[in-house]
């Protein structure tokens, strides 16, 4: 047997098409999933047991079933409630549902890590919960959110490979097609692995930039040495 990547020559467009769909599906799942995740996190933090219970059920349900089963349930379950969606849409929704549970946990943990007094002082001065979240809590947790969210986004992008099992023509699905036509599995999957790798690298680089940008204001104040600052301010007062 010889390693012969030239076999793939005719199939590049198919693979690229699949890669593009993978990117699109992941991007939609990221946006929808994050919005849902933030909403669920807010529910989880509301006073009272009912919203907390609802959020807990949501998170635990989605975290505790295998992703492929979740896809099947969404794809084959929706028609029962009279909703017939194309595989790609159903798959994207399933993917969004799946990540939203994890995003919710990330957001919830970041908010809980902030001292409670921050939210309370905003409330005590008259801000509504939404205003307090927006002006006081959110700016302080954005930077902390980026690394774990990136991790989850990378995982989610890779999990999108499972959508091939409900015939969504994304990268993995196309690779199976190409493999069937060429009978050269190693060449095909090596190529597909590199494409996934490339997409992941791009996401990681994007997140690095985002982290730098979001954190710009905070880095400025963190980089200053607080002890030195305090010393200088005390000296300045004496003078």
């Amino acid at each position: 047997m010889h390693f012969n990547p030239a076999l793939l020559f005719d199939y590049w467009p198919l693979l690229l098409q699949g890669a593009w769909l993978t990117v699109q599906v992941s991007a939609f799942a990221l946006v929808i999933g994050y919005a849902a995740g933030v909403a669920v996190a807010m529910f989880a933090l509301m006073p009272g047991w009912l919203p907390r219970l609802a959020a807990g059920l949501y998170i635990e349900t989605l975290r505790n079933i295998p992703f492929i089963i979740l896809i099947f349930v969404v794809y084959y379950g929706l028609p029962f409630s009279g909703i017939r969606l194309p595989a790609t849409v159903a798959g994207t929704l399933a993917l969004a549902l799946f990540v939203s549970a994890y995003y919710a946990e990330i957001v919830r943990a970041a908010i809980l890590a902030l001292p409670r007094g921050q939210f309370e002082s905003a409330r005590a001065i008259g801000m509504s919960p939404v205003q307090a979240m927006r002006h006081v809590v959110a700016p302080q947790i954005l930077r902390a959110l980026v690394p774990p969210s990136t991790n989850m986004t990378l995982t989610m992008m890779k999990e999108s490979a499972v959508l091939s099992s409900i015939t969504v023509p994304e990268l993995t699905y196309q690779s199976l097609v190409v493999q069937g036509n060429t009978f050269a599995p190693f060449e095909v999957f090596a190529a597909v692995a590199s494409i996934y790798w490339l997409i992941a690298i791009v996401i990681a680089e994007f997140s690095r930039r985002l982290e730098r940008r979001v954190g710009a204001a905070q880095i400025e104040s963190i980089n200053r040495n607080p002890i030195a600052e305090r010393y200088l301010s005390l000296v300045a007062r004496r003078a």
Partner: protein
Amino acid sequence: MTAPPVLRVSALTKCFFGTAAVDDLYLDVHEGEIVALIGPSGCGKSTLLRCLTWLEQPDDGFIEVTGKPFGRELTNGGVVRRHSRREIDALRPKIGIVFQQFNLWPHMTALENVVCPQVVVLGRPRVEAVRRGEEQLARLGLAERMDRHPRALSGGQQQRVAIARALAMDPALMLFDEPTSALDPELVGEVLSVLRSLAEVGMTMLVVTHEIGFAANVADRIAFMDRGRILEEGPAHDIIAAPREPRLRNFLDLVLANRPHAIPGTRINKTE
């Protein structure tokens, strides 16, 4: 008819798991008055302050701020009506609170800490909010520190930013939670002078404190709290010189045994 007290607390009760932290408590604070609330740890002082800002929801009782009911009210039909979140938030700026740990927002500069709530809560135009913020900060001696972030300020400066933040909302009443406890002992005098300067412009204040000497120095009236109730209250002088309640006497003995020069009754001369 005389004006209603700035703060009127009646029959306030707050239980934690069956234990009353605040137990059927009554307290009036009149305009321009400084009332110090003293008492042993765990007597419910901080819980009371949290109830007064509705951060903790009292189980029973009523709070009135400048005659307006806050949180719940007794309607004409004798039915207790709970206020909506919006109604509560609308009255909250009237009650300024300075927390023990100040709780400044670290991602904003000192000035922005003071400006942001004015714009967000009161809807003031930014220009006006900035003008008022600068005015308040300058009055508290922070003119040179406005563009610093809280972490670049000393404890005393942070506290004054927190005071400015509350004052900029035009409160009718200021609450202070242990204003001396998070600061170096040498700064206590500074806090005292800040509170005195607020008193000069007629601000009404309720100060929760452990430091009996501080209470004696700053307050017109002292209220002694124990087990969720106010056991004794009266002019600062009388309370310390001639406590009637045995528990207050005990408390004073204990505090004074530790720091014999904390309350030199003779050295306090508020009239001078």
